[in-house]
């Protein structure tokens, strides 16, 4: 569903992402982790079509993002760490606008269902300015899920959510993956990644350090302690390396 081949992104002389390759299949949840400045957000922005990559290819559900961006974008939803909403549109108007752009025929019913599911139904006529951070996040999610994407990209999905919201978000991610979506979650919260992700991609200084099924990566870096936590693995994977691409458990 997500295929990334030798992705690279440069800002002048600075390489934010270098030679990054990985895939995410249907029903998989890939956790993208790395220290600050590792290139996680840049990778997500390239995958969502917000910024053009400097090199490499990205395919979403078989559609090349560079060659057929519209077909690729129809299949994906991207949720940035800070929800970007239209100040003047109410919750309901946001959904109507998105329905038109993504051609969602049964938008009213789907929208109503999403608002119910995300507990936003009583805020349908509220403007984003009057919503809490968590509710804004929910509205962004409702907008993104309205057209039934097959690929979902999350950047720090738990930021600003209360404990109830966190639990619901985790359940929602698992459920969508169970329905066959390919999900990529970028987060610094390693316990979240450990809990919900089936696969792991560790990046450092824009390069891949490890990638593969969670257990394979764990095995690769666990050394003498097979029950090492993801936190320990993360520090071993990123602390010992000097930014040179590792072979990764899954190759690529």
């Amino acid at each position, binding site marked *: 569903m997500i295929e990334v081949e030798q992705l690279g992104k440069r800002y002048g002389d600075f390489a934010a992402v270098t030679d990054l390759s990985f895939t995410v299949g249907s029903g998989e949840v890939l956790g993208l982790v790395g220290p600050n400045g590792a290139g996680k957000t840049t990778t997500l922005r390239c995958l969502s079509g917000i910024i053009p990559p400097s090199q490499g290819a990205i395919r979403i559900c078989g559609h090349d993002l560079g060659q057929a961006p519209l077909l690729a974008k129809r299949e994906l939803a991207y949720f940035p760490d800070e929800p970007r909403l239209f100040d003047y549109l109410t919750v309901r108007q946001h959904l109507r*606008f998105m329905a038109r752009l993504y051609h969602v025929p049964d938008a009213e019913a789907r929208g109503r269902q999403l608002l119910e599911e995300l507990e936003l139904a009583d805020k349908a006529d509220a403007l984003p300015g009057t919503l809490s951070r968590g509710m804004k996040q929910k509205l962004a999610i409702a907008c993104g899920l309205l057209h039934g994407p097959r690929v979902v990209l999350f950047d720090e999905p738990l930021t600003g959510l209360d404990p109830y919201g966190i639990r619901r978000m985790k359940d929602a991610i698992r459920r969508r993956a169970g329905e066959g979506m390919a999900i990529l979650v970028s987060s610094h919260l390693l316990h979240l990644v450990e809990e919900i992700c089936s696969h792991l991609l560790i990046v450092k200084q824009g390069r891949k350090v490890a990638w593969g099924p969670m257990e394979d990566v764990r095995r690769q870096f666990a050394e003498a302690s097979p029950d090492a936590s993801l936190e320990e693995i993360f520090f071993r994977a990123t602390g010992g390396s000097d930014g040179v691409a590792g072979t990764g458990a899954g190759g690529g």
Partner: protein
Amino acid sequence: MFRTLVYLVACQWWNRVLSQVRRLRQPKYLAAAAAGLAYFYWFFLRNMFLGPPGVSPFRAAGAERGIEWAALWEVAGALGVAAMVVAAWLFPRKRAALDFSEAEVAFLFPAPVGRRTLVHYKVLRGQLGILLGAVLMMLMSARSTTGPVWVRLLGWWTLIAALELHRLGAAFARTRLLDRGMTTGRRRLWVLGTALVVAAGFFAWVWRAQVMPTAGDWASMESMAAYAGRVSDSGPLYWLLLPFRVMVRPLVAGSGGAFAAAIVPAWAVLGVLYGWVIRSTVAFEEASVERAALRARAQAAVRSGNWQLLEGLRPRRDPFRLAPLGLPEIGFLWKNLIVAGSTFSVRFWVSLGVGLVVAAMAMKGAMRGSAGPPMLGMLLLVSAVLSLVVGPQVATFDLRQSFGTLEVLKTLPVPGWRLVLGEVAASWVVLTVVQWFLLVLAAVLGGRVPGWAERGWLAAGLGVGLALVIPGLNLLSLLIHNGAALLFPGWTRFGAGPSHGFEAMGRNLLMMVGVIVSMALALAVPGLAGAAVFFVTRGVLPFAVVAPLGALLALGLMLVEAYAGLRMLGDRFERMDISTELAAGGS
């Protein structure tokens, strides 16, 4: 501690200057700074330092008649300062709040820094702004004041700094009064009452001392000036205005010697005000935090171009029912009509249109033979034509207001050119409808303009022709304005790179020139083609037909150009790397 705060001010100022200077390595910022400097030199510096001293014609005429301008300016200035002082006690309602940024609030308020030190810091921090204000006032008043440049600069600085200190001191005093139970209403009554008593006392003196103006005093400018001088230099008015005249006097000093004599008492007043402010601090933290948040919101609103955010928003009704299937452009039109506000709903415009046309017809019928309705019609016609120039700059509910959500727009499955078309559609429709509306009203009210009645068909033809080209003109103009924002995001206020001083001045100048040149180029071919059709066919076809015919051809060509422009801008939008364009203020 105070030295640390001085360090903070100095670092912030120096880094800001450095970042501005570093930007000049990019040609577009260098060009903007050069244009700004050239403009500044041409209109201000050239006359100030290199040319003969500028004297306004009014001032020259007065000098010829022997009017003592310096003394009159001093009195007029003192009256103005007195009015500002009274206003500072009369109008404000809120508690004292100092202008801190959100970062200053976050770092300084929880730090072990005393209130007095914070006030010191604010007074110090304000000096740069006051100095810039003084330079600006010095430049603006170059032709109406005399004396060397440094005298005027120091004079303005002294006056503005004193007013600022007084504003702060008055705010502290008002807050203290509030804390002691004096409501705003009661305070205003006291201030107004005192002002009335003083004014009554002055008029009583004028009456009793028999210094009421006579017919002779009103006879000429010289006699009026002499009377004003006489009254202000004697009696109670002299003493009342003395503290204010002391502050204005350095400004009107004609020489270094006169300035030296005038500045000592002015600085003494400044010192008294400073002591008053420093010794009378009150709890300003809570109101300052609120003001910092408000300021941050205002800056964000200005940056995004969404001025309405300043007032706080209310949900707005859908302008029309948006079906989930159909052209995406209509979706953007729908969204931006909501941004434009409830004023732009279809129902509102149809009701207003019908109502005003009926009212105009009734007015014309009632005032048959009068020149009023045709004149009003002409005024509306001129407004319609003027709005072709001003409208696209003002109606910014398009891409220019969507820069804050660019990241969302980039993820949408809509081709770039259709997204740009959709984004400009609301401004385009609104402007066109308003201008057509003005034309219809002008047509209803007009028709009896001298010289045009007998050429009715020509007028009608030209009117229809204008109505036909209006959509094309608006679309091209909007595309140029939106194109400027897309091509040079760092140059528009919507970009992330803030500009100041000469660079901002030059940038605006260059943008204006760029828009005018682009529009002239875009209109050259359609204009020539339309005119050619008009002149070739006017001998063959009736006037009522030739103008619309030419206009139709011009409109067609404009739409072709607009399509080409849309494709170009759409391509630009799709390739735009917002992470570098907006974060770095453009590349």
